């Protein structure tokens, strides 16, 4: 399997395809982009089928020397942590291409190309096993996103793009310094080599903080989250979907690939900080979501709250160890965080897509401009209620699985962590259902609503596919937890060993 270079294909096929779409021009861009995204998705399926869930070692590896002087390799590989995210990415990109089909009339070829290129780069982020390669992809990803918001964005897009760019760039610059430091100390940019380096505590803390800045901004964690609502509000629907469904996950993934295994002692030392930031995200941001007047802002804030469960689940292992003296329950917590990432990809994608459906018709996202949408769009209303319920973590939907696992595990760390985390049950339902009540239910609010048309076939198809996955993952998460299991156990074993030099 290895010599098929599947991972390379997954990176370069959409990038080359994107360039081809760009050249083909506006007339042919849509079907071409669709073909490229479908082929990429199909190519990504063997990763799932051929994946060996019994090992935590890298699979589908490819390794070539890239820059000899610094020992930088073009080194790709996946394990149970990255494989599901790659599939999520190839899947969501298909949805985005379809979502932009009729909606994007301004420079559609460039729009499609931007997303395809972004798909390839993000696959690179998840597959890179060399820190420098990772960094290159990590930064390169900003460029198409920057263009997407800047060109197809709303009125205030300039402020949003600058804020987005500077925020994320600031974080990653510090990460670069850390990576160079690690290279200086260990003489290798290979991530696995970094995993086995002995590092002193002071250095660990500094490295941890730099990673925290880089990945915390991406997740985003409170208090470095304020770029996200602005970026979402200004981004076109496709931009919001990729941002929420995939880009935020890169932050979470970074914690698993870099922070925990490279600086476990600092992670343990600063677990309180992560818990504080995560719980603030869950509680504080939940209340903020409640009072938003703009639908996209509401969902953006709810994304931050949901991602709080991800970071919390990842770092609970140390809190559990501190409280009980063993790591039992850590796997559940980390699994919960991972499932939450994948699930949030589907649900937030679906929420932003739904808002896009409304925006395309009404050209406003103000909640007060809506009311009684169900009277005109009953099918859409059904989907919207489903996704809102998933957003509030209803069992049977994917939104439940991750939160459930993390809350259960957090009880082992501390009653109060579990208590605060579980408030999402109330607050999450409050903002989701209040949104539904104000937009979907009730009598026809005004003349604009009275003219609404229900979803067309294209929109129905996308919503139905997302609904299918939201329910599937909720009713049967085992296939997903199964592929991640061994990698997560391995990571916890690794991170529970001190790396301080003797």
């Amino acid at each position, binding site marked *: 399997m290895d010599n098929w270079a599947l991972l390379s294909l997954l990176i370069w096929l959409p990038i080359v395809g994107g360039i081809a779409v760009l050249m083909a021009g506006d007339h042919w861009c849509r079907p071409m982009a669709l073909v490229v995204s479908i082929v990429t998705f199909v190519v990504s399926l063997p990763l799932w089928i051929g994946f060996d869930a019994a090992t935590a070692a890298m699979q589908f590896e490819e390794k070539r020397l890239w820059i000899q002087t610094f020992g930088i390799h073009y080194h790709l590989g996946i394990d149970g942590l990255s494989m599901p995210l790659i599939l999520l990415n190839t899947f969501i990109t298909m949805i985005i291409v379809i979502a932009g089909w009729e909606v994007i009339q301004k420079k559609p070829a460039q729009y499609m190309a931007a997303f395809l290129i972004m798909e390839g780069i993000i696959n690179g982020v998840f597959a890179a096993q060399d820190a420098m390669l990772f960094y290159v992809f990590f930064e390169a990803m900003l460029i198409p996103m920057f263009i997407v918001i800047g060109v197809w964005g709303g009125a205030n897009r*300039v402020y949003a*793009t*600058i*804020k987005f*760019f500077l*925020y994320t*760039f600031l974080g990653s*610059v510090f990460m670069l310094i850390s990576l*160079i430091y690690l290279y*200086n100390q260990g003489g290798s940019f290979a991530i696995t080599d970094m995993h086995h380096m002995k590092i002193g505590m002071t250095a660990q803390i500094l490295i941890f903080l730099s990673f925290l800045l880089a990945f915390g901004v991406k997740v985003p964690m409170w*208090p470095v989250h*304020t770029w996200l609502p602005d970026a979402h509000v200004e981004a076109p629907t496709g931009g919001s979907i990729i941002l929420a469904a995939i880009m935020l996950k890169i932050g979470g993934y970074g914690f698993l690939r870099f922070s925990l295994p490279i600086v476990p002692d600092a992670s343990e030392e600063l677990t309180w900080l992560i818990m504080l930031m995560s719980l603030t995200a869950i509680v*504080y941001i939940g*209340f*903020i979501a*409640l*009072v938003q007047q703009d639908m996209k802002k509401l969902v953006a804030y709810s994304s931050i709250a949901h991602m709080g469960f991800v970071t919390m689940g990842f770092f609970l292992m140390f809190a559990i160890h501190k409280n009980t003296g063993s790591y*039992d*329950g850590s*796997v*559940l917590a980390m699994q919960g965080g991972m499932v939450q990432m994948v699930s949030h990809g589907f649900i937030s994608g679906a929420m932003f897509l739904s808002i896009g459906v409304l925006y395309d018709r009404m050209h406003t996202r103000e909640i007060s401009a809506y009311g*009684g949408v*169900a*009277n*005109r769009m*009953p099918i859409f209303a059904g989907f919207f*209620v489903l996704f809102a*319920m998933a957003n509030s973590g*209803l*069992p*049977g939907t994917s939104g439940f*699985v991750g939160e*459930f696992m993390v809350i*259960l595990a*957090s*009880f*082992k760390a501390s*009653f109060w962590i*579990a208590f605060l985390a*579980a*408030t999402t*049950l*109330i*607050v999450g*339902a*409050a903002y989701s259902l*209040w949104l539904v*009540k104000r937009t*979907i*239910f*009730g*009598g*026809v609010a005004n003349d604009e609503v*009275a003219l609404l048309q229900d979803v067309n076939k294209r929109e129905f198809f996308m919503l139905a596919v997302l609904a299918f996955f939201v329910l599937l993952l909720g*009713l*049967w*998460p085992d296939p997903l*937890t199964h592929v991640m*299991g061994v990698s997560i*156990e391995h990571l916890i074993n690794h991170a529970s060993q001190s790396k301080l030099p003797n």
Partner: protein
Amino acid sequence: MELIYLLIPLSPLIGAIIAGLFGSKIGRKGAHTVTILGVAISCILSFVVLKHIVFDGNTYNENLYTWSAVKGISFHVGFMIDNLTAMMMVVVTFVSLMVHVYTMGYMSDDEHNWPKDSQAGFNSYQRFFSYISLFTFSMLMLVMSNNFMQLFFGWEAVGLVSYLLIGFWSTRDTAIYANMKAFLVNRVGDFGFLLGIAAVLMYFGSMDYQEVFDKAPALADSKINIIGSTEWSLMTVTCILLFVGAMGKSAQVPLHVWLPDSMEGPTPISALIHAATMVTAGIFMVARMSPLYELSTTALSFVLVIGAITAFFMGLIGIVQNDIKKVVAYSTLSQLGYMTVALGAGAYGAAVFHLMTHAFFKALLFLAAGSVIIAMHHEQDIRKMGGLKKYMPITYWTSLIGSLALIGFPGFAGFFSKDLIIEAVHMSDVPGATFAYWMVLLGVFVTAFYSFRMFFLVFHGEERMDEHTKSHLHESPWVVTVPLVALAIPAVFAGYLLDPMVVGDFFKGAIAGVGVEGSLVSEMKATYHGVFGFITHGLMMPPFWLAMGGLVSAWFIYMRRPEIATWFYKRFRWLHTLLDNKYFVDDFNQKFFASGAVSLGKVLWKAGDRILIDGLLVNGSAWLVNKVSGTVRRIQTGYMYHYAFSMIVGVLAFISWIIYRTSAS
């Protein structure tokens, strides 16, 4: 048998999916045929299971599939079928079947309930059938579960369907307010419930009922620290947390506020969900967990007191209600309080027995109320009714049976179960039992009073409706009256199951047989001389005379001397205000929790995100940079790409420097 167990929840689910997704293709007839068929299969098979489990003495506890297996902890979907489950399955599917049939009549002219210009009501008839079948599936998953995860799934799924059905007429503002309120208040309960489940998983190491129960005795004296170093009993904490969930679902004070509002939903679901089945899920859950509750007297005491407060004070509100459905709703609250009291007293069997009898007579009362509402053209105010007896004989007689069963008239179902509860509380030595005893005893008078106040105002006395309504008054069609009669039968006779169910060892193995439960059973056995002996004994006991007192007072005040009610109203204005405003709990919640949360959100957003983070830190640093760079303004072009470019150049320079240093050293 496994196939049968699987078919019982799945056949309503399949019906729900077909009616829900293909409603426009199969039409009304197709929708009600397929869903009724599904529930009928489920009901018949439930009786088969009842025979198999109860009479042939089998039990079943198997996992069906692995939901998710994480190192050391696996989550399954599976069934645990014993006598308790089998009984619940029969109750749920039987009432559900009756409600399905009844719905054909009640919803037949549903298009009148939607505004002309709305398409939200499209296929509403099919959708309604889909929802109630989906509810039946969820409720069956809840009661048949063999583990906490699936219990929680069923628990929330019935909540979802309840949400969809309360807000079924989604163009009505009151309905969509009520359904959100119901969901959120239930979520407050689920908040505790989930923490309880987390406690179970973390301290018992399993989600499986049987494993947890097996480990419980060994953990009976475990302590956990919650605040500082104060030690709390693990059992007490776990049981109270789980009970908070039951308080939400079974509408116990102070989480009762959603149930009266839920009457915004169509009447069939008030009968099925908000009287007979879903709201009793909390009672069922505590009975199911009885091996845990038995280990904590503190938790039982908590349960007892909450139940007692609910039983009496919610009944009082029932007296001042004028909406026919609201009266029945408050009576449901009060009766749920009775069940909770029984649980708190440790008489789980009595609680479940009352759950069963209540399911029949309360579903009957709601459906009868619905029949009246149809006849009255959706008028629900009992002050505008009266004398309906001669127009609606079947509804009249079945309502009478239901009311007599509710007040515990000797020989009717409620008599046996309610007397049993009062006896149990009387014998109980759980702290708070004396208080609870007086509450449930006085509650009997209150129950009889409000029930017959409504009964007389609706069916007897002068006809207060307008001429137009009066000219159209007639008995409801057979699809409505047949379920009434079918429910009236168990409303009378279910009580006679006292013999096998409580005196016998029906719940042995399913419910912890120690504590009061044990002594109650042994005392019952000692003094028990058949059902009729129980009735004659009951005639000499205070509950009977209190019930009679309530009935006669209602008759005297509302039929003979209405001026007494007026006098009372004037003399005790404050009491009326207090009751009419439901002890101001709703107002408090609205002002404190709802508005409070919104205000808090606004403050956090404006002060935290906008001023502090964005204003001070983000834009502030931008401002600072701007100021500092004032001197080098000439090279500041203001173009984004220039800035980005200089950043990249900077980073490159930095890297070069480091590399230079590295290679130099």
